[in-house]
């Protein structure tokens, strides 16, 4: 059954935030909210789960640290332990202070870049990606809430949404498969 979705447009982030709370109290399902800028507290009002991207970043940092240690241990200590300016290349620990700047930078490099790439992949962002923007005004000064009508009465949902302060309400076919 192809369900219908309602696009409700707001022009103020406070009104939007209250509307989100009311819609959730009525147990309607919010598909998506489009905003031109981050609205503080929106993810809490929508009940979205916390991001785990910081955890991935920590793990990537550990990978970077390991890469730096293994790389320099192999190059400087195992493969060709030269005497360079009297620095002790007998074991990794003896020459470690010289490697710390690289260990640090590699940790940061891996943590930062892999986290960014993870972000792009998880949020499906890449060049030439087709923009998924239901209404161009949402990138400028309007806020758009997409509410799934499901088995509810469309009339009832749209009149409820206009009572939450929506300026415009339009009904669309839900062409996405879930």
């Amino acid at each position, binding site marked *: 059954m192809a369900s219908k979705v309602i696009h409700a447009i707001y022009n103020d982030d406070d009104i939007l935030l209250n509307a989100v709370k009311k819609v959730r109290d009525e147990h309607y399902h919010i598909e998506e909210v489009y905003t031109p800028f981050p609205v503080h507290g929106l993810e809490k009002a929508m009940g979205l789960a916390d991001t785990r991207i*910081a955890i991935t970043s*920590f793990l990537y940092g550990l990978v970077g640290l390991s890469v730096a240690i293994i790389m320099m241990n192999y190059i400087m200590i195992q493969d060709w332990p030269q005497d360079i300016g*009297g620095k002790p290349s007998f074991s990794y620990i003896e020459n470690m*202070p*010289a490697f710390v700047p690289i260990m640090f930078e590699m940790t940061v490099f891996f943590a930062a870049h892999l986290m960014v790439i993870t972000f792009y992949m998880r949020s499906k962002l890449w060049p030439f990606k087709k923009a998924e923007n239901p209404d161009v005004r949402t990138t400028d000064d309007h806020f758009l809430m997409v509410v799934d009508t499901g088995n509810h009465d469309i009339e009832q949902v749209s009149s409820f949404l206009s009572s939450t302060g929506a300026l415009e309400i339009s009904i669309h076919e839900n062409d996405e498969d879930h």
Partner: protein
Amino acid sequence: MYTLPNKLKLFAIIFMVVGAVGIVSGFLMAPKTTSEVKEMMVDGHGDGHGGDHAVVDESHNGGHGEEAHDDEAHYEHVLHQLQNRPWSALYVASFFFFMIALGTLAFYAIQYAAQAGWSPVLFRVMEGITAYLPVASVIILVLLLLSAFHVNHIFHWMDPELVNPESDHYDKLIAGKSSFLNVPFFLIRALIFLGGWNLYRWVSRRNSLRDDNAEDNRWFKKNFKASAIFLVFFIVTESMMSWDWIMSFDPHWFSTLFGWYVFAGMMVSAITVIAMVTIVLKSQGYLEHVNDSHIHDLAKYMFGFSIFWTYLWFSQFMLIWYSNIPEEVTYFVTRIEDYNLPFFGMVVMNFVFPVLMLMNSDYKRVNWFVILTGIVILVGHYIDVFNMVMPATVGASWFIGLPEIGAIMFFFGLFVLVVFTALTKAPLLAKRNPFIKESKHFHY
């Protein structure tokens, strides 16, 4: 209003009494003559370092290097180290608690000057901690005066023989620095530093109390100006203070970022103590407006300044290790050879532990987590000061025993008594600070 619980008072006094016993017995245990040193060393004495005395001829103790091979001179050398030990233990502990009070004062001034919106609910806590500053200043001054009048020899350069060209002990390097490192100028500097810091502490506390009953923001503005001026004064004098009171223990050695290094340790210990006192008062129901977000912010500062401290520690260590210039590197040679565990152990306590414990955003809101990490950080920074002072005064004859623990206990008791007594003197909420409302509703 906060009332000092009798139990806390008793707790503090017990610590002071037990600590004082430890300090006194430390002085009584110190040997008076070389023959006592011989006896102690034969017994494999309780120091736990009997075997290490072969390495006491450190090059940094100017003029002793050659003689140390001689047996009698060696015992003489160890005697001086053992006689320095109770003094150094006293000095390290008093400096450690002094630096907590001073660091808190600097943090407080930063909050005023930056017009921080989150911290005004903590101002009275910070003012309570800085109430220890005048007490600590007197103690430090007395210790410096005792050294200046040759009651002890923890400041090697104060020995007049070293700058006398006629003497056998003439030390050209120290003599060359004597226009800065001489006793009268040293004491004048100490008076200027302590006077300036205590003046700001007195002015800002007075203005803060007057602000409670004021009609306008006059006292806040005055405090803002005083804080900005103090911060300029502080960063100059703090740097010089670290040369005078810490770096001059090794008068042959110098490091340009030393002032920053001491500052970083000072700030992280101070913020840790602010967080701990806040949590204690909050758990007793006194700080109504302090919430998890305030603790979270303090824990973030603990985390950040721990990393900042490590950055400076490593920068100082690595630059000297890398270039390996003999006149600079002796500082770390003695520390790595004679103080291996405390020297590297403190890096674990001051860096690895807080970084792993406080990285998670949720953990920064868990009070017992902050307290646990705070204890490790504070112990770590005590060992940091210990590592800065002891190698120059007691060398390889170090041990964390009765005099050291006694001194810590004494100053801890005094600190708790002074701080919590000061907290009873004023309401724990600054009433009409312009940012107090924002601070009450602060959330992260």
